[in-house]
């Protein structure tokens, strides 16, 4: 097999989407060059321009997720910060929290941290070996424990397994439902106006096509008893030494990533222009092709649903007699194909699907990938396992 010199095939979109479109680059650069002042801090024209850019980004995100009031969109650096804000901000000493065994460490670590300090009682309900949430099991746990918080991902970052949020919302009882939307925001249609989700965490740098350093937490009502992670300058209520109590300032201290959010607004524009349903169909087609080819390969074992309708465009696999890192290294060095190997910051998920501690090779596709990219990956994998 011959490789095309200089052509990198990027299949790591579940970590960060790449490359970004020209519109995103232009938006970041325009902000950086023309008006990258501190928003909401001064009365001069550049500060106002920066404030308007931040406002427009918040409005774009609210419209994208079907949220009626953009003040309920709290900006963060990434989904990890969003999840930490939600978890640390919602739970109180003695609370019970329920989650699934397919969660990323951005959920598991804050929860284990609180558990180790004796502040919460944590129950982790095992998911199936394909990564499906045990919804009856979660319902029983909710009924038995009356938890403060129920945390689930919308899709696994390891297997892509989708979680039925409507069913989860139906069993949450009086718990606050926190959804980790890292893997679905931008690639699966999400209508928060018709979902009973209390807190929705997302990141900008994956399928929303924005730059790194952008993310957010969306509040269902704005009346949640959520405490801020940080206190500090907001540009508002400056005569007081206490944190303002109104949204979004209550949760947003310090100068934000203005360039980043300008880029995120442009990224969302690109996603909307193409349409999330069309992106979903495109990614399903690519995933189907990849899964079908992998299923015919000796020595290759696919983990997860093996069904494009039940997963995002994420495929995890193992190869007999080769470590995931060896496969990933050969894909990178010999074929310029970028994938992610190992545990994907989700040891609990790998224990659930039976791939701990060696992990998997994860190929994650995005809206910018083509069928040629998938075929090149298939050909490269065939080459690697045949020698």
């Amino acid at each position: 097999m011959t490789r095309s010199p200089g052509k990198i095939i990027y299949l790591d979109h579940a970590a960060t989407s790449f490359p970004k479109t020209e519109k995103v680059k232009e938006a970041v650069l325009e902000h950086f060059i023309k008006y990258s002042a501190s928003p909401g801090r001064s009365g001069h024209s550049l500060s106002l321009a920066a404030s308007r850019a931040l406002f427009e980004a918040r409005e774009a995100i609210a419209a994208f997720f079907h949220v009626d009031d953009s003040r309920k969109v709290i900006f963060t650096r990434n989904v990890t910060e969003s999840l930490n804000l939600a978890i640390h901000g919602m739970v109180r000493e003695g609370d019970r929290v329920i989650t699934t065994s397919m969660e990323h460490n951005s959920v598991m670590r804050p929860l284990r941290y609180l558990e180790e300090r004796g502040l919460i009682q944590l129950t982790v309900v095992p998911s199936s070996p394909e990564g499906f949430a045990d919804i009856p099991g979660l319902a029983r746990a909710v009924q038995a424990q009356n938890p403060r918080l129920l945390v689930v991902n919308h899709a696994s970052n390891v297997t892509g397994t989708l979680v039925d949020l409507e069913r989860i919302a139906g069993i949450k009882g009086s718990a606050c439902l926190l959804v980790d939307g890292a893997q679905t925001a931008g690639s699966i249609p999400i209508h928060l106006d018709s979902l009973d989700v209390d807190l929705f965490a997302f990141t900008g740098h994956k399928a929303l096509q924005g730059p790194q350093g952008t993310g957010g937490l969306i509040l269902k009502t704005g009346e949640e008893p959520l405490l801020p992670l940080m206190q500090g300058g907001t540009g508002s209520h400056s005569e007081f030494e206490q944190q303002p109590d109104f949204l979004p300032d209550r949760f947003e201290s310090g100068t934000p990533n203005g360039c980043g959010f300008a880029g995120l607004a442009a990224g969302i524009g690109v996603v909307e222009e193409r349409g999330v349903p069309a992106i979903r169909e495109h990614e399903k087609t690519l995933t189907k092709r990849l899964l079908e080819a992998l299923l015919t390969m000796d020595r290759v074992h696919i983990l997860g649903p093996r069904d494009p309708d039940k997963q995002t465009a994420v495929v995890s696999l193992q190869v007999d007699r080769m470590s995931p890192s060896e496969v990933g290294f050969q894909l990178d060095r010999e074929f310029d194909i970028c994938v992610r190997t190992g545990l994907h910051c989700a040891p609990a998920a790998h224990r659930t699907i039976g791939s701990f501690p060696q992990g998997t090779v994860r190929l994650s596709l995005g809206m910018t990938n083509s069928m040629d990219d998938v075929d090149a990956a298939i050909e490269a994998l065939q080459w690697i396992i045949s020698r």
Partner: protein
Amino acid sequence: MDHLPLEKQERTLVFVLYSIHNVMKAEKVLRSQEVLFDTIPVPKEISADCGMAILVACDNRKRVRKMLENSGIDIKGIYLRTCGRYEKEND
């Protein structure tokens, strides 16, 4: 009188809002309704806050108030500006 630019009118109204987000939202609403306005620093005579406020012509009092309230914008206070003096309007 009202054909003068806002800063030259003798009597104008200052809408002080909670947070820069509300000010940005007010800008969007007023712009969409083609209402003449200016975005100014909150006058120090009104508050020590370092935020921004919306300046409009006196004749637009009811119309602007209604537009802002209908858009879910919380109004902290409305002040009549006369020759550099500020007087809080009653609710």
